[in-house]
């Protein structure tokens, strides 16, 4: 964490006893004094990782709403698929209108598949793609951006040239070609494939953030103390970039959602899994949903599912910024009175696209 923070348990609690047994002043301390019990450590971790972020999160409506929606998708993709039967043809009557029977609350397709079931069972793969794509894109971007920005010089030039080259490849056509050649069916692989050159732009902007951070006094102090580069990156630089990275993680996730839906819609990705994009494709092509007005629901529901998850990711991205902003967090968690500037609460990190 940022050295400006007032909390943290890394410094041993030095007890400067005023007098020693012989009455003289000493800086020595008892071992017992610095021992932190497991309980305390756990409590600190809890504070750090859950309590404080939670406090900040619940204070912000965006995080709450975004989180709840996303939680809904998580539940749908984990518990929902266990309890709700998977879509198969002729599981219910054909072409049932939505909201007319509990057998198929959102209606059914021309081949008798339950629309709700299709939406629910497309969720796990979508979440896997999101995580795979998000982690891959932000992971690579962070690594490349921080190393390039911090090391500078030749390494910087080499890495920057490489990511510039990657950035100059048109993303979508590249993905299409790769999808056709490799025909991936594993959602984790698809997620990575979709963000195959998404990291480049993000890496660039992380690099520029690092360029400013590397001159910060606490980084300089670490350097002077001979701390290794890797440790500086890990302890000083990356934690300060976390808000930025997480916001962009959410954006990468949103990108994965839209791209995968688009490619499934176009029939580029193999149709081996359920996907909302596939549903749109089938609704448009097979059911003629744009022409036959009565079939419009086949387009609307998967679209709502896509919009819902995208909206939750946007809200989370905005909300997370505040969760990771140490100053806001400290104040809201009630540990510092030093920050009283209300304006700070309004600030949020710009989203990088």
């Amino acid at each position, binding site marked *: 964490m940022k050295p400006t923070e007032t909390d943290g348990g890394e410094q041993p609690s030095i007890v400067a006893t005023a007098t020693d047994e012989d009455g003289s002043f000493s800086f020595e301390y008892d071992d017992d004094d610095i021992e932190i019990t497991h309980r305390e450590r756990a409590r600190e971790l809890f504070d750090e990782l859950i309590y404080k972020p939670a406090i900040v999160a619940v204070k912000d409506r965006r995080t709450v709403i975004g989180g709840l929606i996303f939680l809904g998708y998580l539940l749908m993709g984990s518990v929902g698929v266990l309890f709700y039967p998977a879509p198969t043809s002729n599981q219910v009557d054909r072409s049932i209108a939505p909201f007319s029977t509990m057998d198929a609350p959102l209606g059914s397709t021309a081949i008798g598949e339950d629309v709700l079931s299709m939406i629910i069972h497309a969720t796990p793969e979508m979440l896997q793609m999101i995580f795979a794509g998000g982690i891959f894109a932000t992971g690579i971007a962070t690594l490349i951006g921080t190393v390039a920005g911090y090391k500078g010089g030749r390494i910087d030039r080499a890495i920057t040239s490489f990511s510039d080259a990657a950035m100059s490849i048109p993303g979508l056509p590249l993905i299409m070609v790769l999808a056709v050649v490799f025909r991936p069916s594993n959602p984790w692989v698809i997620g990575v494939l979709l963000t195959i050159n998404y990291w480049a732009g993000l890496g660039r902007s992380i690099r520029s953030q690092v360029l400013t951070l590397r001159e910060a006094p606490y980084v300089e102090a670490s350097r002077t103390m001979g701390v290794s580069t890797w440790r500086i990156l890990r302890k000083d630089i990356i934690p300060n970039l976390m808000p930025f990275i997480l916001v962009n993680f959410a954006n990468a996730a949103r990108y994965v959602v839209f791209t995968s839906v688009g490619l499934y819609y176009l029939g580029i990705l193999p149709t081996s899994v359920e996907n909302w994009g596939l549903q749109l494709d089938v609704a448009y092509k097979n059911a*003629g949903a744009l022409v036959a007005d009565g079939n419009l629901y086949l387009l609307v529901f998967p679209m709502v599912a896509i919009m819902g998850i995208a909206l939750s990711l946007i809200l989370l991205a905005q909300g997370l910024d505040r969760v990771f902003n140490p100053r806001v967090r400290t104040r809201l968690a009630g540990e510092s009175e030093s920050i009283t500037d209300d304006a700070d609460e309004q600030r949020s990190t710009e989203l990088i696209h």
Partner: protein
Amino acid sequence: MVETDASRHMQLNRRRFIELSGAAGAISLAGCADLVNNDGSGTDGGGGGGSGSRHISMTNKIPSELQWNNSNPSTRAEISRRAIFDRFVAYNIKTGEFEGYAISDWSHDGSSFELTVREDLTWENGDDVTAEDVATQLNLGLKTGASYAGYTESIEASSEKTVTFTFNSELGEQIPKYDILAARYLHQKASEFGKFLDQIEEDEEAGLQALTEFAYSEPIASGPWTIESKDQQQLLLTKRDDHPDSGNINFDEYVFKYYEDNNSVYQALKNDEIDSAFNLYASPDVVESFPENFMQVQTPGAWGYGLIPNHDHQHMGDRAVRQAIQYVINRKQVVENVSAASKSVPPYPVGIPSSKQEQWIGDHTDAFDDYGADSSATDKATTVLEDAGYAQQDENWVDSDGNVVEIPIIEPSGWNDWNDATKTIVDQLSSFGFAASSESRDYGTLTDTVWPNSEFAITTGGWLDGVPQGIYPYFSLHHQLVKNSRGFSYNYAAADTTRGGDRGEVTVPAMDGSGELTITPSDRLDELAVASDESTVTEITVELAWVTNQDLPMVPVMEKMGQSFIDAQGEWSVPEEGTDSLGIRYPNTWLPRTGELEYTG
């Protein structure tokens, strides 16, 4: 996409040109950007169907790229060529009659067949249509492996207006009629195409290559319309006054507007932008949304969705597995899922189209297995599999070595109706315990590599030969057993070497239930081709149908009706629904010639 419009003129199998029927092209990447509605503009001034005396139809290929060399499968025109060129004869699917047209008369005499060219017919440049023109075109077919190449020795222009076929041996009358006359158009004028024939004589490979690469972009019309202009959006044809039937046509222009996919055609019909659409699959919901003035004309396709197993595959090559698949598939459910209005259930899985099954095997239906047309006959499937050494393990069927029976069905992407059918079948097979799955591929990839190179365990494909030949059992049986018209290298033992077989024997249980029947289908088909007395024809047909029913070289699932739409009220008058003349394919290009499609606006 529109289901393929099977063109039977050319089967360039020699040169790996297996039926690249353009109408069926899958979505190209380039076309993806604008799927919703590609054509809001256009030259149609008024909002309603057609302006002035102009008939507006559709094409799903970019007009400026079209070419009319039927021997070149690339960007070949599909519908407009039926307007620009005259058909040999008008074959009526409804009545089964052949009505002379560009070929006004024909006669069959055992080992020869004579065609008489219509007397007053001219090309658009004023030249008479001669026997030389017809012979040139048919001889090119002979060189490129057209279906009649197998039994034809020579084709000659024996007089100014007479073309004579000489066959290798005696031939029944039906085969040349269906094969040579029924689906052919007069499109290769000797002055333009004769040079290729010479070239092929000199150097076959180079000549064939030149022919199949020739882009005939300014064709000389034999039909009543000629090309006026073409651009990205439309192909404009104007009426030829010197065509013998131009007096029947009371409108001046014929326009083919470009719509890149079915949905944009649906939109155009819905908005009454066009006057007719051909060979367009539309589900009942979609048809419902069209304005009432459109009449739907349905013609039997003698073609339809089936599964083509690779007979070299470990499991698909096993008759028991094929039979189990056929038992498990509930054909009626598939048809109803796809479109009960435009698809039908074949009563018996055999190499004969549904409408002709009663006629040919009606007396033997007790013996034939229908494999459960309207149910999943899982009991029978279980029996047949268990008898062959398969067993169910953890709900999955495994063979005697413990390998799971996987059924990965490869299908063309973007073929709406087929994709629905495959999905249904995958579900049916999966619930029975087969590890079934589907994978869609671009149609071009299928025809170029997957099918000819046997890169499939099982794939979707037409189990019949298509109208009109497919109507006649010789052709449909030939398609299933020996040489399918789509280039599936399915490695069936009895098949031709170009289809992965060696024209070998097939052994099936005897039809009367005692013993076995071993025959060589290709030999029996040759006998069928020359048979002239009815009892022999029936005997061989039943025997071969029995082989297809027992051995299932292909797995029939459904049969289609071709759907065309014509503006029947408003500005156009057409025959009433049910009229016989609607049994002639492509009514929007045929009816104007007879004066039955008239502009009344």
